[in-house]
């Protein structure tokens, strides 16, 4: 069974479509990147899947059932900038919030939740920061706290909105290793990603979207120059590569082999 099935999904803000008739599936146990230019609807895709925005048409199913019935199977890492980091609370407290879903209304977090949260902080190497006020964290540390919070959800499928945004190279490696651990233990991870260069190295599946779904499938099959061009239009620069090779697969699992490409600064 697929971990995620999206069929005919359209999301619009008023009459402006942000996602236009998206179809895609993610098999269980894959580590998938969602890439596309700014304003392509990547975040909206996650939000629609989690019921945070109401689709105009279509549906998303998590392991074959609507999200509302499968909340407990889903972990969520929102964009780091979406919360107020001056909020008066500690690192441990934020991580425990990941357990609130299993606790349900009214029940309070206790020893078990503390232990799970500490364990998750250990995994992201933030245990020493457990009692810190969250405003004292750097960007990379904030990201790891959010990751720990998703880990304690103990989900089957994780949605992460730009977990590498504003983190240093060391933290990025640590996060990637963690994501690959999750996949190794059979979890599905869907990541909104910005850095095209690292897609073949980090992920095994990729979905390219720009309001429409351009392509979705194993990186080796769909992460092609033609698809990237279709996704990014003229806003992508291919470096050190002659044009017109059609469907040549870019990247072979290691960085810097053959083709180098980068998203140019786009002006929307």
């Amino acid at each position, binding site marked *: 069974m697929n971990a995620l099935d999206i069929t005919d999904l359209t999301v619009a803000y008023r009459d402006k479509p942000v996602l236009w008739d998206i179809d895609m599936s993610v098999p269980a146990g894959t580590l998938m990147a969602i890439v596309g230019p700014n304003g392509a609807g990547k975040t909206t895709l996650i*939000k629609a899947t*989690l*019921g*945070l925005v109401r689709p105009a048409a279509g549906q998303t199913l998590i392991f074959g059932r609507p999200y*509302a019935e499968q*909340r407990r199977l*889903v972990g*969520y890492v*929102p964009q780091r900038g*979406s*919360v*107020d980091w001056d*909020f*008066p*609370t*500690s690192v441990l*407290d*934020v991580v425990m*919030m990941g357990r*609130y*879903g299993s*606790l349900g*209304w*009214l029940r*309070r*977090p206790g020893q078990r939740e503390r232990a799970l949260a500490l364990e998750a902080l250990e995994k992201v190497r933030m245990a020493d920061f457990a009692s810190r*006020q969250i*405003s004292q964290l750097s960007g990379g540390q904030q990201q790891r706290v959010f990751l720990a*919070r998703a880990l304690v959800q103990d989900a089957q499928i994780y949605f992460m909105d730009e977990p590498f945004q504003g983190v240093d190279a060391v933290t990025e490696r640590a996060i990637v290793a963690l994501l690959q651990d999750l996949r190794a233990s059979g979890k599905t991870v869907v990541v909104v990603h910005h850095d095209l260069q690292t897609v073949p190295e980090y992920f095994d599946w990729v979905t390219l979207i720009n309001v429409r779904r351009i392509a979705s499938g194993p990186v080796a099959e769909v992460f092609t120059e033609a698809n990237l061009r279709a996704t990014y239009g003229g806003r992508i620069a291919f470096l050190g590569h002659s044009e017109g090779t059609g469907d040549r697969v870019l990247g072979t699992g290691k960085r810097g082999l053959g083709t180098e490409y980068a998203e140019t600064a786009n002006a929307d």
Partner: protein
Amino acid sequence: MSPQLEVQLIAVVIAAACAIPGVFLVLRRMAMLSDAISHTVLLGIVLGYFLTRDLASPLLFVGAVAMGVATVSLVELVSRTGLVKEDAAIGLVFPALFSVAVILISRFASNVHLDTDSVLLGELALAPFDRLILLGLDLPRALVVGLGTLLLNLVLVLLFYKELKLATFDAALAAALGFAPALVHYGLMTVVSITAVGAFDAVGSILVIALMVGPPAAAYLLTDRLSRMLALSVLIGAASALAGYWFAAWLDVAIAGSMATMVGVAFLLVYLFAPERGLIATAARRARQRWLFAEQMLALHLLNHAGTPEAAAECASDQVGEHLRWRPVFAAEVVRRAEQGGLVRRQGPMLALTERGRALAQEASLR
């Protein structure tokens, strides 16, 4: 109980009741909704009065709370059009509703006890005259209402602490986990409305705003835990209420105005003297960092020039400031501090780094 004691008790209870939902308003950046709600509840009271022709009817209370919640919806409705920002929407909605209430009162109810002055400022000094019997006790009505509101707020916050915290910190996660942040939001707004109505009779709408916003804003500067922020808000609110009462008694002025003033004074004191985030602590920290940075510059300079041919000029204690383009007084002070801190020592006319100074310079050079 003497009337003086009763007035103080009412003031403390209402201050505590207002501080609790106020914490969440401040953290959600919705402090000004308390302004809107505390005014528009008047329209609810007026409409309730027209329906019942009875100032003591519980329907007035229900109408006021409903109007408070309706205000929040209206503000959302207006700002969701995308044509005006939320703060402007608040400024559009509540004066409209409030002025309708004022017009209705002055046109149709001028003979009734519903005057606009007492709406703004309350009449706390008169509260002990309006009494009721509860459980065989003869109590001021405002005290009973205040205690009821405080109890309600305490119970709700204790029950829904986790939900309120999550929905305030991360509404998206709250929604994803199934905690219906919209429900939490409107629940909170209902509580704010109930508190505003309960407090409004005794202390007027201006003081309701002061008590909902001031103590939480001060507590926010004193702690970094939500539970402590709640407790401190209640304490600061209660202390301001008492101080306000005695200030008013001393100067023989309006109690509500004097309480609001004390809330302002309490905030000012915290703003200045808060141990970590206060103005003075921040300034002291900046000053310390400035000296520390200057000492690092000095140490790095000495490290770079030690043992070089120009060291005699660069590292001489009376010339080092000139080379760094520092004013002589500043340079002398930096050298004095560095010496005192064991970072440098004098070797004849020269300054030399100690082991600690060298370590500091090396650490600084890595940045």
